[in-house]
């Protein structure tokens, strides 16, 4: 319990600090911070439709976050989940409106598998092989491939082969029986799908099991913890580098697939959603623990939904939630300073008491 507390104390303090600074910022702009945060919370959880929207918004964040967490645990930084998400989304939409003769459940599985594979290939092959064999920084290669992926998806619907006849930059809609069913539309009034929720929870459990209960996971973490020691112990570091990045892309690809089947139903402009970047925050806040990613993802889903409602209710721009996100990561990254400050404070106090005693 104590270990758990010390693990998550940092992220919680970071979040609180960010909320305080955000509060100062909104007060400086002449708003009442309590009513602003009140509308943020009620916008995220206040009624059943917003709760549904919050859960729906957290699904792509959790799935991308799981992929990023696996990479982090293996000592790798997958900064390009956004691109992996979009190429996988494009691929599963394509599968979703072709192959119309398949039965529904099989077609859904087909879409998801294709999305996962495409995400894994996009995220794993080039960055993984170049990292393993020539030592190119995966931060740069995944980031560059991410932009290429987004431009590719954009091209496909802006004059490319997936554009629907007509002038709108969007693909045809996927067939009806691949669309994940909404949960109780009259009650929820949101695009909440229990199938998507189930896939997400299952993915988190699988990621957790894989990392902590299997040999592959053990070796991935060993390579991430100390590459030299892992190599000395006879682990195939190059292989596990590629596997880690492929798995990372696989989860980001799953995120794209689930979002297409569950919410968007077609490829269309939404390329500035930045799920891949928010998911980095999610993963860091969860300390790269897959089960923690579920919670952190829900928190950021709430921030997204709450931010939109806050903008409507109290006229505070939803961009405030980005400010909070940036501050949270900054503080989480800088939390190493806390023990140093405590040490400095103790030393100063012991110095002072030493002076008083003499």
């Amino acid at each position: 319990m104590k270990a758990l507390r010390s693990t998550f104390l940092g992220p919680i303090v970071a979040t609180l600090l960010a909320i305080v600074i955000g509060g100062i910022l909104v007060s400086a702009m002449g708003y009442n911070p309590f009513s602003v945060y009140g509308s943020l919370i009620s916008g995220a959880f206040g009624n059943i439709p917003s709760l549904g929207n919050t859960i729906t918004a957290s699904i792509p964040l959790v799935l991308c976050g799981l992929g990023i967490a696996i990479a982090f645990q293996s000592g790798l930084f997958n900064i390009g989940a956004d691109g992996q998400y979009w190429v996988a989304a494009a691929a599963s939409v394509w599968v979703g409106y072709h192959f119309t003769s398949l039965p529904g459940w099989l077609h859904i599985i087909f879409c998801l598998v294709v999305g996962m594979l495409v995400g894994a290939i996009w995220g794993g092959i080039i960055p993984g092989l170049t990292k393993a064999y020539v030592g190119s920084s995966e931060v740069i290669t995944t980031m560059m491939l991410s932009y290429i992926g987004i431009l590719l998806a954009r091209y496909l619907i802006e004059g490319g082969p997936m554009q629907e006849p007509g002038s709108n930059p969007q693909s045809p809609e996927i067939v009806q029986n691949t669309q994940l069913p909404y949960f109780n539309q009259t009650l929820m009034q949101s695009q909440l799908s229990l199938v998507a929720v189930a896939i997400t929870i299952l993915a988190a459990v699988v990621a957790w099991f894989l990392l902590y209960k299997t040999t592959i996971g053990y070796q991935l973490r060993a390579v991430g913890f100390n590459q030299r020691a892992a190599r000395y112990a006879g682990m195939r570091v190059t292989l596990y580098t590629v596997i880690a990045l492929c798995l990372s892309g696989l989860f980001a690809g799953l995120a794209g697939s689930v979002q297409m089947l569950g919410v968007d139903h077609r490829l269309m402009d939404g390329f500035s959603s930045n799920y891949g970047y928010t998911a980095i925050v999610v993963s860091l806040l969860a300390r790269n623990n897959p089960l923690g990613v579920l919670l952190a993802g829900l928190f950021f889903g709430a921030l997204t939904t709450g931010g939109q409602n806050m903008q409507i209710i109290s006229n505070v721009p939803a961009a405030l939630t980005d400010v909070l996100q940036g501050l949270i990561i900054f503080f989480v990254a800088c939390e190493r300073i806390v023990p140093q400050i405590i040490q400095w404070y103790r030393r100063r106090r012991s110095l002072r008491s030493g002076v008083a005693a003499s």
Partner: protein
Amino acid sequence: MSIFADAQIWNSTLSMAVPLALPAIGGTFSERTGVVNVAMEGIMLMGAFFGVAFSYWTGSAWIGLLMALIIGGLTSAAFAWGAIRVSADQVVLGMAINIFAAGLTAFLLDTVFGFSGTPPTTPKLPNVSLPGIDKIPYVGQIFTNQSILVYVMIAIVILSHWFLFHTRLGLRMRSVGENPLAADTVGINVWRLRYAGVIIGGLLSALGGAYLSIGVLNSFSVNMTNGRGYIALAAMIFGKWTPLGSFGAALLFGFSTALGIVLQGNGVSSNLLQMIPYALTIIALTGLVGRSIPPAADGLPYDPKR
């Protein structure tokens, strides 16, 4: 081929290269001293927004430019503190700065200026033509009616090359990024030079951002840098972490953008053309042609107490 004979495309290539070359050279300074810098995008946004805001409030684009530099410098100082003093993960910190800056500038744009955006009466920096040179046919057209920051950029390219590779301080800065322990042993203050590198990087990125908002236009819009900070990162790598190389890469990438605009409507997808910088960077990193190798201590925090 007629496209290339038209001086106009070279004129716009040069002006499109500015917001890539400045942050790319800034990133070069930072990474040469050993601090991985992906925060160019965020610092550009800060420079762009505060450049416009202070131009409007004070009525002088020059004060706007000065404030853009100050705020960009302060933002990069916060980044430098986290990266150097706290030894935090530099890529994570850079992401934090980028997300924070995108949020803050969008938030302030809405709350300070309202939904109509920055006022059209905001002053901008002057455009100038080089006297004498602008009379030369063809070449003159390239240097006609360019923002003053275009010429500033050319001066910065030359100065920073000279500084990094032909002065003692430049050599020391590079040594800190290659082998900080050795530099420390001979009495070089590693942290101070790293702070200097990151802050110079911040100033140049903010200058690039201000070029977009008060150099080319006189307004700010949400996320107006539109990923240029990341293309600058690509230009820095493709330019092998040198000022001249960064400038060359920025010209190449600027040219592909200019070409994309000219070719629009000719059936060539601008989305595909825009992939060029990113694809070239991957190729450069993987060493298919003349491999780019980062400074040896790039991204490794240095703790002088050990």
